[in-house]
């Protein structure tokens, strides 16, 4: 004990441990998320704008402004979420619990639609099913001689189909995860008790997975009601409005306060459904997490219906993934979508401007607008990946390290708030927030910074969740044991935290990147010609009738998305060298 003399003075602790960090994180979150929403609400309450509320809710125009779009939105939400749970649940059941052929392939395919931007399927639908009702090019089926009725080409029905084919994969992911945790002992115990397949499904599996079904349904509902691209591409040409297209239209024509009011109402509706879903399942969550000893019970034997059910699954999956991709690629080569597989040309990709072709619009690589949009999009993706993961990691670290207290609870709640806010409403909120100068800060409308800040805030729930997974990998004691050696915050970060977390962070960053580059609903309102992004450029081309360019750009987004997703998956699954045995 000779060398036990104390060295170094202590220091006074003015706050409880973590208070400073918590306050910093809270301030960031408030600035990113709470203030934009608050500002939007306040904007509509000024004396010259408050009439927007009565215009929208009770005025002469309210039927067209609000109630009809509301009706359409609710129809879309209810029907799409019902079908998503049905299809997603069916596929999840096939993959997790039965002996259907090619289970694993079906499982992978079922997660793919969510990688495809939601406007891709809508564009593909148009390329196949357009008829001559609104002029412009006709689709392939009409070109082949089929007579496509209006209800199948435009409006509600195609919107429902396209959205269902997009969002069922979200339901699949949630339900499959829940089914996978159904302890095989539960099923075996029921079998021993004498229950047969149907009884087991109704008596054991369904009740146990109810929380997941409800969660899947409410998330699909929230996604469908806030989706902008699909109703805009398939519904707007025939004047079918939803709340999100209405919101977009109001802001486009300068009726900003009415737009904000519609946005606020949209947030309330999707928030109410998510809240209700959460409410129904709260307290029942604990069901699914009983730890199992691995080893799955015998799979449910489908016997003769193995191949028929396989075919049904393949049909759905083809329609959701393979067909749209093929159609988009083919269409980017075909001068006429009426004749999709003939006269292919590379003009839309590499052609110089020529008056004979597409009104002189040059091919993608010679098209300065598209190239600039590509660069801006990539830069935006990278920037948001970095800022998003930084804020996400900081937030999840703070909450994981200092769990107690109202501050931590507030941080958690706020960080998940953007889940309740549809992208287009969030975009509108950011125009209200940073569109005009605040004190010494200049207006950010039309700047790259605005896109980055809004994107970071919008994806925060996702990056916080990813950050939390990373923090769990690093573990509290690993960091504490480094702290005891006297290593400062930076040194711990460089030597311990980052080496352990780098793969998880990179994978999370890549997924954030993918989410932002294929997003349309958030950026569609923030878009300006000086700061173009690919998805909005594609949307503009599509609505102006240049389907080939729209489709070609979508193919580019698709390729980048899929590439980045594959790299992220590889990073996540590849074991770390020091974990190899």
């Amino acid at each position, binding site marked *: 004990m000779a060398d036990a003399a*104390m060295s170094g003075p202590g220091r006074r602790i003015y706050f409880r441990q973590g208070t400073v960090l918590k306050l910093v994180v809270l301030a960031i979150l408030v600035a990113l998320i709470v203030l934009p929403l608050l500002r939007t609400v306040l904007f509509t309450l000024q004396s010259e704008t408050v009439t927007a509320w009565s215009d929208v809710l009770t005025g002469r125009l309210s039927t067209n402004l609000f109630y009809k779009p509301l009706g359409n939105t609710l129809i879309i939400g209810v029907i799409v979420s019902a079908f998503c749970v049905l299809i997603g649940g069916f596929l999840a059941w096939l993959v997790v619990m039965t002996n259907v052929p090619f289970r694993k392939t079906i499982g992978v395919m079922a997660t793919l639609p969510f990688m495809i931007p939601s406007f891709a399927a809508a564009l593909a639908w148009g390329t196949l099913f357009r008829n001559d009702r609104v002029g412009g090019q006709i689709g392939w089926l009409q070109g082949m001689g089929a007579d496509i009725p209006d209800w199948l080409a435009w409006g509600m029905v195609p919107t429902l189909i396209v959205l269902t084919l997009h969002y069922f994969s979200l339901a699949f992911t949630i339900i499959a995860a829940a089914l996978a945790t159904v302890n095989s002992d539960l099923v075996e115990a029921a079998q021993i008790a004498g229950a047969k397949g149907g009884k087991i499904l109704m008596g054991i599996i369904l009740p146990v997975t109810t929380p997941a079904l409800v969660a899947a349904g409410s998330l699909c509902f929230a996604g469908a009601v806030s989706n902008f691209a699909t109703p805009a591409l398939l519904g707007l040409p025939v004047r079918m409005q939803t709340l999100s297209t209405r919101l977009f239209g109001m802001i486009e024509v300068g009726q900003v306060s009415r737009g904000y009011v519609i946005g606020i109402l949209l947030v309330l509706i999707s928030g109410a459904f998510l809240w209700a879903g959460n409410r129904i399942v709260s307290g029942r969550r604990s069901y699914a997490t009983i730890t199992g000893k691995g080893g799955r019970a015998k799979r449910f034997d489908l016997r003769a219906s193995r191949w028929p059910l396989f075919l049904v699954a393949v049909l759905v999956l083809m329609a959701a993934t393979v067909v749209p991709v093929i159609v988009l690629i083919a269409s980017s080569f075909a001068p006429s979508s009426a004749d999709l597989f003939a006269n292919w040309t590379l003009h839309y990709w590499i052609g110089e401007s020529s008056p004979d072709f597409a009104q002189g619009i040059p091919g993608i690589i010679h098209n300065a607008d598209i190239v600039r949009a590509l660069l801006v999009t990539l830069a935006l993706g990278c920037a948001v990946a970095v800022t998003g993961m930084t804020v996400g990691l900081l937030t999840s670290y703070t909450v994981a390290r200092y769990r107690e207290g109202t501050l931590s609870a507030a941080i958690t709640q706020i960080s998940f708030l953007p889940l309740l806010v549809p992208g287009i409403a969030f975009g509108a909120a950011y125009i209200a927030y940073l569109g005009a100068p605040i004190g010494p800060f200049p207006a950010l409308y039309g700047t790259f910074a605005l896109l980055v800040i809004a994107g970071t805030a919008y994806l925060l729930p996702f990056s916080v969740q990813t950050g939390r997974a990373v923090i769990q990998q690093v573990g509290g004691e690993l960091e504490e044991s480094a702290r005891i050696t006297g290593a400062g915050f930076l040194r711990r970060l460089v030597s311990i935290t980052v080496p352990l977390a780098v793969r998880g962070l990179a994978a999370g960053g890549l997924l954030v990147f993918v989410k932002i580059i294929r997003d349309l609903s958030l950026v569609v309102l923030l878009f300006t010609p000086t700061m173009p992004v690919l998805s909005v450029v594609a949307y503009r081309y599509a609505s102006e009738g240049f389907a080939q360019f729209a489709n070609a750009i979508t193919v580019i987004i698709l390729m980048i998305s899929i590439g980045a997703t594959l790299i992220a998956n590889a990073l996540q699954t590849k074991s770390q060298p020091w974990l190899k045995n």
Partner: protein
Amino acid sequence: MLEIKNITKRFGTFEAVKDVSLAVPSGAFLVLLGPSGCGKTTLLRMLAGLENPSAGQLVFDGQTVSDGDRNWSVDPAKRNSGLVFQSYALWPHMSVRGNVEWPLKVGQMSRAERDARVAEVLELLDIHQLANRYPNEISGGQQQRVAIARTIAPRPGVLLFDEPLSNLDAKLRVEMRTELMRLHRATGATTVYVTHDQIEAMTMATHVAVMNHGRLQQFGTPNELLDRPETSFVATFVGTPPNNMIPVVKNGSGYKIGAKHMPLHPPAEVQDCLAMFRAEALHVRSEESATSLPMELVEMSAIAGRTMVTALADGLRLTAIVDDPPQVRIGETVHMELPPEPACWFGLDGARLH
């Protein structure tokens, strides 16, 4: 000298540690003993500087390192202490050598010194042949040794252990116990060791602090705890087999145990109380006697040439150590005979009666 002065720790409204005070001399081996949730780990984390006390002081060798009353704290790294975590907390991306060396690097030790010190501690813990392996490539017992090597490498004056043996199997645990005591002699560091295992405490400690519900129940040497337990909790928590604690009910002028009158003489002024009998003082009879209780035989096991007998009746569980096993089968009735007087008396509040 390591002093703990009136330490209290609150998490919100919950008091994890309540007004604990004790002091041990330099070089002592202090064990904090108690059931899970008794506050012992919280106390250890305060000693390490990972938590700040809500009230009270921690003093290492005359220097205050934590002061909850003045919100004063010395950084964990500057307390001259080292902590071995329950999970070992080895950095998975560093080799065994890297794990041991990194804290020295942080401490800005020169390269030559560092190499010498790493070699020395790896040798001391007999893991030098594992120097280039990664934590996932070695066994739990070896990981434990690496964690200890990492902690002692910077030569801390105070060594802190958080249930270090709880993840090891029974045989390895006994070996590591011996190893830790050897290490304690070799380093001479004041050691604070948290465990819920009273055998570990009794074999290793120079001083034991028994805790329950955040309070210090008793502080003393292992022998003091065995000979003079201050609370009924200590009396039943410490010792192998544990002491028997029997409720005694005043009935008129005499006293009853269960339904039976017993010729007992508790300290004068009390009504109902608890009587402590040592296991070796009990006898097992096949016939009833004046001080015996009829009970159901539930367990018998041979221990070091003697037999430990456990019997149960009306929720009362008695354990006796006897020379010859009773000729009775499990489930049948035995008569547990008590000695004329208990070893000591406790009030119903658990405090010892004098």
